């Protein structure tokens, strides 16, 4: 049963969580991806395998971690391995089905920037940097990207390619890699790469969102699919689970 009282962020998180099939192996970044992945695990995908770059494999946190290495992740994991091992034996080896990323900028070919705004040597804003993202973007079977649709984040070309989507011109992704970004899930809708050109294309909007709104929050001439779907509203169950998860998390982090 759909619940009509939800926020745009909740819509985004629920939509992202629905992209994760039960039993998939998911390499999760902190923040929005972690929230969506754990929502999936607590709803339709109880056997989702969550791997965090701190080395926790098969972790089942009760609360969302504030940091990628919180004790909740270690204590609820099937096993914990070293950081060199998690990147070599688990990510690089191609054992990850879904890599889940966010970023400060994304361009029309799904390339991600989390390094700098402005020139590298004299940045206007120095962002945190790559972390595990470049190799997740390359090696995961597919990549899901989650970020809020804002004009300053959806830019024609990113200031710095931290993680490769389809390359600067859409042809830069080697065939031997994973499929790359298959969906960019925002608070307004879903963008997917065009099968031929790899240009991100609006294929779905969330209920009540107009295509024009998405265009306005995109700093390039956004392609729109011939038929734009409307995503399904969150169910009451999804919202209840998500809100309880966030409440438990806030209580834990306040301590």
């Amino acid at each position: 049963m759909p619940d009509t009282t939800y926020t745009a962020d909740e819509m985004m998180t629920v939509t992202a969580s629905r992209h994760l099939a039960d039993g998939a192996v998911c390499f999760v970044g902190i923040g929005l991806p972690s929230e969506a992945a754990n929502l999936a695990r607590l709803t339709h995908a109880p056997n989702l395998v969550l791997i965090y770059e701190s080395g926790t494999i098969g972790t089942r946190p009760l609360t969302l971690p504030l940091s990628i290495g919180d004790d909740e992740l270690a204590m609820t994991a099937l096993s914990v391995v070293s950081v060199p091992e998690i990147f070599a034996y688990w990510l690089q080896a191609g054992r990850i089905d879904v890599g889940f990323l966010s970023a400060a900028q994304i361009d029309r070919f799904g390339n991600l920037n989390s390094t700098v705004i402005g020139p590298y040597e004299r940045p206007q804003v120095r962002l945190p940097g790559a972390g595990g993202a470049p190799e997740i973007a390359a090696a995961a079977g597919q990549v899901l990207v989650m970020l809020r649709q804002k004009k300053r984040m959806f830019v024609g070309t990113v200031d710095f390619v931290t993680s490769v989507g389809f390359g600067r011109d859409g042809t830069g992704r080697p065939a031997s890699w994973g499929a790359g970004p298959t969906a960019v899930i925002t608070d307004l809708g879903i963008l997917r790469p065009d099968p031929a050109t790899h240009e991100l294309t609006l294929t779905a909007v969330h209920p009540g969102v107009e295509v024009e709104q998405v265009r306005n929050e995109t700093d390039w001439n956004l392609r729109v699919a011939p038929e734009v779907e409307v995503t399904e509203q969150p169910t009451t169950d999804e919202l209840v689970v998500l809100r309880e998860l966030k409440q438990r998390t806030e209580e834990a982090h306040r301590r």
Partner: protein
Amino acid sequence: MAPPGAGRGSEVGSVWHTDAVLAQFTTLREAVADLIGDGDTVAMEGFTHLIPFAAGHEVIRQEKRDLVVSRLTPDVIYDQMIGAGCVRKVIFSWGGNPGVGSLHRLRDAVENGYPHPIEIEEHSHAGMAARYAAGAAGLPFGVLRAYAGTDLAAHTSTIRTLACPFTGEELAAVAALSPDVAVIHAQQADRAGNIGMWGITGVQKEAVLGARRSIVTVEEVVEELVPLGSNFVVLPSWTVTAVAHVPHGCHPSYALGFSTRDNRFYVEWDEISRDRATFDEWIDQYVNGVDDHAGYLRMVGESRFEPGHLRDG
């Protein structure tokens, strides 16, 4: 070299369908029948500890042929498989009966082509370990400081050199070893098929992670894996193809916490294997003459185990 992430799933609608299925519990007979084909490259690993003898016997029983078998220490398990005619090629680094002497069936095959000629591909332990590690990491090769000045590289095509792009130092490169099937014995599986092992674990983690398919025999099935002891290693269920509950599946090797090594058997093997007829007789009686590992254990006799170290499997 399989590309990372390629060919492991397919997108249907907006949901990714994964191949990362959980391990299936099965019998060892079914696992060997289904997962090991003639001509496959098979790594039955275990460094003194946890050697998957029950699986080796099942391979003999099912008359698998033309196998390429890899192991750091071929040990008695490959001696048996070679003597029984299952093996076309051995990839190894130390082929002896530890603390006892030669592997007579391996020697007979290499020196006299009996029961048929076999190929060998020979490395050092360090090289073999680097090959398995590269396989587990999805890299086409491993780098190590090794082989320089020895005669090994001249005889082994999976050893080459490369220069460090920073210092120019010349180092050894070894080709990744990614077996078709890895076969190991472990102490525990939980009901979901997650594998736990501890003590000396050799290259088993790397062999399984680098292999296309894997078979794990275990001493016991438990509700939950509880890490204990030094070097507790976990293989998640979704990295394993088949799990079979085979207590004492490593005899005459040992499973720490369950049995001690049957050193007497290793000493006796020297006599059994020295002569072709005695060997054939032993295989007929202890391997082909029984239905499964439980039958083998009855033949060997429970007296062979150190009672104080045994638990019910």
